């Protein structure tokens, strides 16, 4: 196995000890482990090969698995996803990368009209087991169109699962589940924390099931609901709130479709208060769905309106102003206080 040119980490499929990995490395690790296991898995996308991906999430795969399994494609998102549909219906398991979520739009037709519908349209005869990975979200002072969080578009579209990890352990386990899933899965990687921290990640293969939320922090006064990069911000807010004597439970949804309603509703029923946090614009974001769910299932347990702390209904601002856009500890804490003071 080549060590590649300069990357720090080349996958621990053959390692036997738990290593401390970043989220980007956990992605790489999951791909290594799974590609080793199942020769029908193919990685394809722009710059995923020799270059190892612009965030190095596919680093070393090309050297290890060769050009027939790690394919640098032309600059054409519609073809990347459309070809993946063709690969998947004929028995391959493509893991396609879209370089940034802002560049998924040209592939929306293939995702919504084909990948998400093939099983239904053919009454189960043809299926599309594929993963569409992409970095999403703001916070890294990236150029325009590089900071999108448009998960709501896909959560609203039946037939495609949407998964968003918030830490390295889950990243590996969820990505392995996504690859093994028999249906298309959109896998959104929080690029803001791609390399922000390391956590122990076991070697070899393990799964974190799709469709189950995690209680990232126990609490009793209020439930904060988030996913992806926002989970850490919420945990941070929860710590700060603790010093004020407020006990916040933080739920990391992990999968946005299907939603783990039970975990969510159990927590809100217990605390009677909820704050949903996301980076995407407020209107018709996934936060609205969560408020609607709570309204439908736990209205009588609510002590206060569910608060939403979200991006604005504006274009994601370019680097100089982006800090004003993203939900932060103060906004989350203020929303929590509002639910308590209601």
């Amino acid at each position, binding site marked *: 196995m080549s060590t590649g040119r300069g990357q720090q980490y080349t996958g621990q499929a053959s390692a036997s000890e738990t290593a401390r990995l970043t989220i980007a490395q956990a992605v790489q690790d999951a791909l290594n482990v799974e590609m080793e296991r199942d020769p029908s898995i*193919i990685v394809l996308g722009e710059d995923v090969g020799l270059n190892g991906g612009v965030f190095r999430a596919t680093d070393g795969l090309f050297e290890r698995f060769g050009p*027939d399994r790690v*394919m640098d*494609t*032309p600059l*054409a998102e*519609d*073809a990347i*996803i*459309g*070809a*993946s*549909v*063709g*690969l*998947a*219906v*004929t*028995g*391959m398991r*493509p893991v396609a990368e879209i370089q940034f979520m802002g560049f998924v739009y*040209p592939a929306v*037709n*293939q995702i919504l*009209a*084909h990948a998400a519908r*093939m*099983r*239904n*349209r*053919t*009454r*189960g*005869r*043809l*299926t599309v087991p594929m993963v569409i990975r992409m970095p999403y979200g703001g916070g890294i002072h990236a150029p325009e169109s590089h900071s999108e969080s448009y998960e709501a578009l896909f959560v609203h579209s*039946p*037939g495609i*699962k949407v998964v968003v990890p918030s830490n390295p352990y889950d990243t590996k386990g969820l990505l392995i589940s996504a690859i093994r*899933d*028999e*249906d298309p899965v959109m896998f959104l990687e929080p690029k803001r924390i791609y390399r922000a921290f390391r956590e122990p990640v076991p070697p070899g293969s393990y799964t974190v099931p799709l*469709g189950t939320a995690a209680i990232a922090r126990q609490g009793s006064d209020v439930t904060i609901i988030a996913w992806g990069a926002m989970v850490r911000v919420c945990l941070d807010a929860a710590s700060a709130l603790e010093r004020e004597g407020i006990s916040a439970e933080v739920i990391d949804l992990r999968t946005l479709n*299907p*939603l783990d*309603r*039970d975990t969510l509703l159990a927590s809100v029923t217990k605390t009677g208060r909820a704050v949903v946090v996301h980076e995407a614009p407020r209107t018709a974001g996934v936060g609205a769905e969560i408020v609607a769910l709570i309204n439908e299932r736990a209205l009588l347990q609510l002590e206060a309106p569910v608060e939403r702390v979200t991006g604005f209904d504006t274009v994601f601002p370019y680097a100089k102003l982006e800090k004003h856009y993203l939900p932060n500890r103060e906004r989350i804490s203020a929303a929590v206080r509002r639910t308590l003071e209601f």
Partner: protein
Amino acid sequence: MPRKPIHSCTVERLEILGPDGALDASLMPDLDEATIVELYRTMVRMRVFDDKAVKLQRQGRMGTWAQLKGQEAVQAGVAHAMIEDDWLIPAFREHGLMFLRGVPGHLIYAYWAGDERGASFPEGVRCLPIAVPVGSQFTHGSGIGLSLKLRGEHAAAVTFGGDGATSEGDFHEALNFAGVFDTNTVFIIQNNQWAISMPRERQTSSPTLAQKADAYGIPGLQVDGNDVFAVYVAATEALERARSGGGPSLIEAVTYRLGDHTTADDASRYRTGEELAHWQEQDPIPRLRRYLEERNLWDDERERTLEEDAAKWVAAEVDAMNAMPPPDPGDIFRYMYASMPPALAGQLAGLTQEVDR
């Protein structure tokens, strides 16, 4: 010479059996008489199958139908060039190809009558469901062609589209992808001169569609799409190349949509009777019949028998469609995911309650 030529291309057109019955014997493929007769039968069966669907639609027993009338030679010629392991990636007007590839006629009818079960083909039939968003199937053809190549299968992905579909970005991305990865794909454009009301000439400014292949560094050929021999020869050549690792290619089959765009359309709003009359003279079925008759391979008697047989077959397919039990409303939910998420099960339970009430 002031500027240095660095690339040139030539696009050829292949014709074997002309509308006037003239045959270029030097190009004639090696087909025995029985096969040629079978090609003819096949084309007539397509016509009968198609006509019946229009009638069913008029009677309110079918939703919308996209007529294949006039395009039988393309579909028979290509089908005959295909082998069992090839995949068919249709647009939405390839009914003839679909039944020749093993999709039961009653399923094709059932589909167009509004029933998804019609797109659930029998095990082993290597065919995608039709693609409703125009052009969106092309990239599937590239992906399937890549898949076949990676697995080392001696098979091709036969990918169809219309003249209108060549304007979509998918066409471009798919052919480019196929060219770069040398996939086992053959793209076949049924250039039937119209995309609903848009004539071919205003769909694109290139004089041929075949020349678009050169943009992707792959071979392109135009054939007379109403000449089943020319189609067969072109398809055989391209398919064999694709199967054996020679890479993708593009075939433009020039034909004509003798019917309306669909049963919801009225083509007389946008095209002239003269044009239609001109193309009726190019009709591939009488053309091949004349060929057979001149060689004493066909006569009115056989035609009658064929028509009776075809009518019987089609009637049986209609019966088979009618014999299908009504679709279960639960099917709306059952095939969304490999296993049904709880919230969806809840929605299904609600519907079941309603339906049972």
